[in-house]
């Protein structure tokens, strides 16, 4: 009788609370079974996850455990917090602590669990996960982490479906609305000349940018640094190397080359290396500024142009992750 009501309530509460929190990554709904002494109870939960740091994400949620099959019914509804270590796909480790209010007497039970899960991302917004955990439930909140003879303990298996919510949770930029027009060599040279580079550096920057533009449409290839495919830093290394400037191979090191320039569009010159933090705080993506607010980069969609200021979804996505500028030409 309680089940549909509580499940619905939990979903509404979690979905409703999500936009209030910064760093919303997504909501996960799951169904699980917890086996204790040969009988199982059904666990329904709704959890909101946000990335904490690196591979660690933090979840806060509601659960409802239907224990009506058990001889002593401890059906309860409560909340829990959990930590996951691992990516959205593949294996991850998990742990949680929670408190539930028993429907029979209104008293609180506390529980903890540790386990592991496996996730797959079906589309950019949908994630499926399976988890196995060992769960211990204590009839008192005080000292619940201690194993006591009257604790209920057993394995819990659960299946979940996760949805990402809102712009900030997107793992990849939305498809560009329409392709941007690449600037001509003359336009690049003019922009370079008016952005503080001397004539010779402006000519060199123009040549580097033209080389990168000539690679437009080349597919993305992890570790690629040639015309068959580029990764982000490979494209920039290739464009510069063609004109004699040797840059480090990986974006993290490219982000330390040359000198820092103000992170404002007005301060940029063609040829500047734009750095992005796509996941976590470290630089994980680089692009080459071509002028007019645009940069060329090799992303999962291949070598293409994106804008820092056009205001479309792609542009906003990259702008939000733009962390720095390096000028590598002296």
């Amino acid at each position: 009788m309680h089940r549909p009501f509580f499940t619905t309530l939990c979903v509404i509460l979690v979905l409703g609370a999500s936009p209030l929190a910064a760093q919303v990554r997504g909501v996960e709904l799951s169904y699980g079974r917890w086996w204790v002494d040969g009988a199982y109870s059904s666990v329904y939960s709704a959890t909101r996850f946000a990335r904490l740091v690196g591979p660690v994400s933090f979840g806060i949620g509601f659960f409802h455990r239907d224990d009506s099959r058990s001889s002593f019914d401890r059906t309860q509804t409560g909340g829990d917090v959990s930590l996951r270590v691992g990516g959205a796909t593949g294996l991850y480790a998990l742990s949680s602590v929670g408190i539930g209010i028993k429907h029979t007497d209104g008293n609180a039970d506390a529980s903890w669990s540790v386990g592991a899960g496996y996730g797959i991302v079906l589309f950019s917004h949908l994630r499926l996960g399976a988890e196995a955990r060992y769960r211990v439930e204590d009839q008192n909140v005080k000292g619940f982490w201690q194993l006591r003879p009257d604790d209920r303990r057993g394995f819990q298996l659960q299946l979940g479906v996760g949805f990402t919510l809102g712009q900030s949770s997107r793992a990849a930029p939305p498809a560009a609305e329409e392709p941007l027009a690449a600037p001509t060599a003359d336009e690049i040279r003019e922009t370079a000349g008016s952005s503080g580079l001397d004539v010779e550096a402006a000519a060199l920057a123009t040549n580097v940018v033209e080389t990168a533009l000539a690679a437009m449409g080349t597919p993305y290839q992890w570790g690629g640094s040639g015309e068959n495919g580029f990764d982000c830093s490979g494209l920039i290394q290739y464009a510069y190397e063609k004109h004699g400037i040797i840059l480090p191979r990986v974006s993290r090191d490219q982000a330390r080359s040359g000198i820092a320039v103000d992170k404002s569009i007005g301060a940029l010159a063609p040829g500047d290396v734009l750095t992005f933090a796509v996941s976590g705080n470290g630089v994980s993506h680089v692009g080459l500024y071509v002028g007019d607010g645009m940069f060329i980069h090799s992303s999962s969609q291949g070598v293409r142009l994106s804008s820092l200021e056009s205001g479309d979804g792609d542009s906003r996505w990259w702008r939000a992750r733009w962390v720095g500028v390096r000028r590598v030409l002296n």
Partner: protein
Amino acid sequence: MVASPLGWGAARAELARLGSLPWISWIPEDEAEGRLAELYARYAGENGIDHILKIHSLNPPSMEGHMRHYAHLMRGPSGLSRAEREMIAVAVSVENKCRY
């Protein structure tokens, strides 16, 4: 210096005036084709192509290598500032009695 691949007599006279520089035949901008034309377009400065590049005109890959080497030494990331690098270039030129 005005010269063409065919104007060797005048060029030799000019060289005699300059001293003992070797003579290398070169292709002027308006006669360049293919790869050379591309490189001329790429490397043209405010006053066209520098003579030091034109001497590679019979061998465009050599011209490209020259410019890459130059950019690498003078324009790439380095512990030396741009001014320090130019200063070294001037000091070496003076020591070698290079008119440049």
